[in-house]
């Protein structure tokens, strides 16, 4: 269909008072826009109707709305899937932040219009990638989290395949006799309820259970994952749409706990061993089977400890409180000591703590363990310093229970031989994510446990975040994952108790359902939820440089043996990092591509050198920086009018060729503004801002080739709340550019 552009100019909200609208209309006409109109209040019913009338009557199918920010009134200016709308922000972005009735401000607005026209001419409405997909959910692991996920998805009407490597379902919950109270009045240990849950799951018509089975291989992409389930040498293939990884946790290796007396006596046991003993019968002293009279619980045995597990396992304090009660119930004469660093019983669990503290036989103290040793009489002495009594105490116990922490099942503990070389690589945040090379990630995944056995170019399993947990880095989006359609839940994601594990599994089931629903429509999942565009590759020009396959933050591109990318559109999150990575410019979205941006840059009018009107181009992240610029506008923070803005899906989608296009075309300087990178990165696409920074290397090379000063390109991190910094960044850069002087390519 032929494209026909209509440009509609709003005069309201101060725009008409700041800009010469007639001149703007002329600029649009000069840019060959056939339908050009202005309105006093474009967002009014009459304004919107006039656009609709042109769509229906005049065949307009590309609409340039020259008014306010795309962040406001989006629904007013949506005209169906066949009409492409571009919002040209001359309100927050021009009239509210630049000098009114000024030549430079007017030129800025006119450039904005020309850039919009270039955008509309060189893009098209997105067409979804739709294929026949499965809406079934694969749940790996049948502990509390996995069972709850499976049951939830099944209850909502989705088919579920549940795989458990053990011969029975239930996980840790089925091995504990009682659990910490999960509800009011939070005082007495209760049943976990896992048996009933197992029964429901096993009898649910929507759930197919595979016990004693593992996932030998997972190929494909969301909506069409093919998982090979292996049981006793027999392989069953299942097709599923999404995956919940609920493979749980394992206890920290007790053999490393010699400092806390482990191994010194059979009477020093772990909290997990305690549960096993409790499940078998009355708790007795392991060495001689006699009743216990004095039991010491040592909290944080190997936890919150830089040499062991640096993190807190979140549940051990409450577990010890529960086990203390268990001892007291079975042995009313026994004394129980709990020695902790900080007693952590958050939320309503404080009530359980208070209930245990009421028990006169339970003695709780803060303290640091100085020594645990076996005495000649067979008892174990535990010496603690810095206790609440203000003095050292020594407890002589006939049973010592070490509260050991949780290790995610995704983590492989390096053996003694491997430890030297491999230590840290699986989970070291210093190394992970700091490189632009996807190989490192592949390595990291190789060193992790193989649970899903994905046949992805970037590794076999979910990338881990820290300490081996495949957790999300995003506070607002805790299910965010770097492998589309695969969601971690329960203690594999982060240390958590059974109640939280169940809740986590329920949420993960929702995400899994959401994914299969979105994929079935060809829509993206978070954070560009609903986006129907996807990248297409013009393979004839591919040089097999592998940048896209290495840099995709979500591992969506595989490779053939020559290194040619094999796209998996259903894994794609539409960030455009591949588009930014490709030196051959072969990656395009219908509504976002290299040519489109190049043409937008070309649309900027570059005044002659002697006019002293520097031109600066700013590529900004449309997730955070764009909003920040809007807020600066709302606050009427004034800035210079020399800067032309092109928002990008992510700064990682910036292709270095645009910088050379701009500079070769006489633009004096280029600003790149994205989100924070590094350990506490805020990039919604994980590595986008880091990759942009990395590509600055290429940009500097280009500058050298063009014999231009390095200062002509600057990269900035800007948080969404940094609006007060914007005028300064813009004005300082303008100063820099004035100092460096005009771009010598201007007059060529």
């Amino acid at each position: 269909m032929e494209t026909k552009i209509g440009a509609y100019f709003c005069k309201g909200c101060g725009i008409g008072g700041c800009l010469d609208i007639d001149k703007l209309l002329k600029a649009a006409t000069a840019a060959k826009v056939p339908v050009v109109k202005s309105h006093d209040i474009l967002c009014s019913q009459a304004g919107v109707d006039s656009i609709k009338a042109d769509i229906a009557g005049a065949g307009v199918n590309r609409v340039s709305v020259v008014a306010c920010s795309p962040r406001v009134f989006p629904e007013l200016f949506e005209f169906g899937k066949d009409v492409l709308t571009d919002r040209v922000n001359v309100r927050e972005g021009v009239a509210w932040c630049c000098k009114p009735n000024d030549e430079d401000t007017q030129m800025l607005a006119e450039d904005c219009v020309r850039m919009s026209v270039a955008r509309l001419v060189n893009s098209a409405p997105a067409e979804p990638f739709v294929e026949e997909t499965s809406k079934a959910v694969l749940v790996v692991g049948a502990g509390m989290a996995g069972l709850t996920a499976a049951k939830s998805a099944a209850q909502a009407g989705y088919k579920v395949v549940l795989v458990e490597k053990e011969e029975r379902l239930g996980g840790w919950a089925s091995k504990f006799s009682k659990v910490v109270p999960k509800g009011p009045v939070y005082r007495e240990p209760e049943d976990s309820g896992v048996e009933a849950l197992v029964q429901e799951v096993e009898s649910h018509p929507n759930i197919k259970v595979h016990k004693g089975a593992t996932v030998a291989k997972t190929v494909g992409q969301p909506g069409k994952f093919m998982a090979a389930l292996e049981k006793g040498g027999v392989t069953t293939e299942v097709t599923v749409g999404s995956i919940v990884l609920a493979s749980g946790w394992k206890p920290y290796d007790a053999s490393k706990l010699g400092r806390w007396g482990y191994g010194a006596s059979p009477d020093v046991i772990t909290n997990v061993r305690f549960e096993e003993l409790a499940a078998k019968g009355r708790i007795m002293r392991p060495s001689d089977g006699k009743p216990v009279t004095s039991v010491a619980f040592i909290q944080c045995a190997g936890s919150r400890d830089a040499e062991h597990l640096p993190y807190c396992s979140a549940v051990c304090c409450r577990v010890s409180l529960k086990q203390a009660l268990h001892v007291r119930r079975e042995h009313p004469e026994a004394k129980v000591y709990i020695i902790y660093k900080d007693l952590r019983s958050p939320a309503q669990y404080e009530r359980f703590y208070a209930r245990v503290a009421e028990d006169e036989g339970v003695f709780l103290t803060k303290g640091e363990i100085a020594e645990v040793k076996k005495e000649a009489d067979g008892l174990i002495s535990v010496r603690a310093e810095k206790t609440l009594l203000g003095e050292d105490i020594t407890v002589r116990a006939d049973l010592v229970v070490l509260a050991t922490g949780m290790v995610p099942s995704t983590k492989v503990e390096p053996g003694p031989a491997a430890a030297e070389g491999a230590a840290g690589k699986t989970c070291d945040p210093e190394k992970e994510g700091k490189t632009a090379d996807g190989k490192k990630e592949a390595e990291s995944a190789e060193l992790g446990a193989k649970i899903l056995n994905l046949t992805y170019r970037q590794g076999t399993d979910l990338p881990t975040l820290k300490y081996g947990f495949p957790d999300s880095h995003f506070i607002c989006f805790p299910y965010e994952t770097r492998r589309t359609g695969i969601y971690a839940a329960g203690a594999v994601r982060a240390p958590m108790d059974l109640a939280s594990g169940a809740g986590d599994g329920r949420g993960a089931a929702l995400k899994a359902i959401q994914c299969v629903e979105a994929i079935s429509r060809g829509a993206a999942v978070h954070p560009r939820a609903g986006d129907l565009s996807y990248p297409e590759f013009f393979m004839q020009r591919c040089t097999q440089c592998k940048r896209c396959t290495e840099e995709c933050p979500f591992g969506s591109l595989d490779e053939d043996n020559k290194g040619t990318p094999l796209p998996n559109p259903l894994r794609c999150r539409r960030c455009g990092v591949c588009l930014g990575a490709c030196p051959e410019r072969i990656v395009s979205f219908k509504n976002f591509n290299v040519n489109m941006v190049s043409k937008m840059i070309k649309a900027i009018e570059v005044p002659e050198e002697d006019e002293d009107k520097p031109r600066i181009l700013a590529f900004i992240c449309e997730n955070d920086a764009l909003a920040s610029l809007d807020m600066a506008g709302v606050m009427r923070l004034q800035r210079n009018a020399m800067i032309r803005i092109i928002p990008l899906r992510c700064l990682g989608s910036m292709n270095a060729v645009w910088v050379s296009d701009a500079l070769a075309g006489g633009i004096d300087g280029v600003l790149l503004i994205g989100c924070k990178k590094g350990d506490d990165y805020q990039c919604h696409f994980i590595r986008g801002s880091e990759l942009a920074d990395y590509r600055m290397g290429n940009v500097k090379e280009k500058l050298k080739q063009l014999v231009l000063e390095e200062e002509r390109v600057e990269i900035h991190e800007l948080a969404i709340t940094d609006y007060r910094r914007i005028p300064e960044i813009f004005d300082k850069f303008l100063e820099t550019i004035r100092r460096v002087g005009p771009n010598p390519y201007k007059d060529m």
Partner: protein
Amino acid sequence: MAEQKIADSMSADILVVGGGIAGMTAALEAAEAGKTVVLSEAKPSLGGRVAATNQYFPKLCPPSCGIEINLRRIKANPSITVLTLAEVEGLSGGRGGHEARIKLHPRFVNEKCTACGDCEKACEVERDNDFNFGLDKTKAVYLPHLMAYPFRYVVDPKHAGDPRMKKAAAACAYGAVELDMKPRTLTLKVGAVVWATGWKPYDAAKLDRLGFGRYRNVVTNSMMERLASQSGPTGGKLVRPSDQVGLKKVGFVQCAGSRDEKHLPYCSAVCCLASMKQATYVRAQYPDAEIHIFYIDVRAPGRMEDFYVKAQEDKKLFFHRGKVGTITEVEGSRNLVLEAENTLTGELTKTEVDMAVLAVGMVPNTADEKPPLDTPLDEFGFIAPDTGKGVIGAGTVTRPLDVASSVVDATGAAMRALIAAAEASAAGRN
């Protein structure tokens, strides 16, 4: 989608009550799973308490960043209808379907508002800014905050009848200010109801010996967020309230009313980390300031421990084990003396600071405003877990939670709502 043209009666799969982070999440997660959702918020805009928070621990990132993404998801999703200034007046039914009666309080500004700000400029009436805990004022016609959604002005109902407001109304070129706007009521048929009405800070004035309300330099942790915020009363400059002077010595009083039989017997789970986070606000502006944190137990679960470890690297940040019993003001300087018993050494300590921050706990809004349908609550007013009765709780109405946990909880609540809506729709077909 914002309330442009809301019909008097409508139906949806799910009603979510409360538009803070939990409610927004529950609504979005359900809508993106294909359900139709009505999101009902009592305030004039979405965002709840996270919108008033300066940064999140442990990343020290701004909540606006996540709100922006969530708002973008809402704007892009035709399956969500957002109601603001909305109050659920009645809810009936049970498994199989509910009918809700929702009162829409007048905004006094209609959908023609473009947020240009001309009314605000012309307005001569001021009000206390509740968003900033009354630490400053706004005009009586105001934009709730920079991230407000809907992005539209609102008139404080206390001042709508003030004749001086006519000037503000007249300044609007779009006819958007409607000072005689009337409330309306709509009825809604839904398959499931998620309750996410959130929390409020414990009333610090009840902590008699800690001086809040008597001494201006005693503030709460929630106020501290506003004091540190770019959009706060001081534009982000941390100064003490009595004289706007910079900070040299700040005290954080943990468990102010929490883990206390006389006040909140439970732990609010986030305050330790919140205070350590607020210590970084102080440190960022005052490299030499002394910071003292008085605590009973430092609770930093999971990998939050890293944040605690990092806090301990600050050489001028001191952790004191002990609960502050009394705060007194020093005459003249308006400094504060924190009296605490150090439970490690047993000694009674007195520490003079120039500002004290009370880490007050979270009270579920369900404690005062009980959810409908006889929803079972625990003794503190939180919605009891897993009863399967009444409305589906999400976020801090179920227990004190940090933001990430609240989002997990809300996503799980959306899952429950999907199941209940599926049951209701099956029942409707039968």
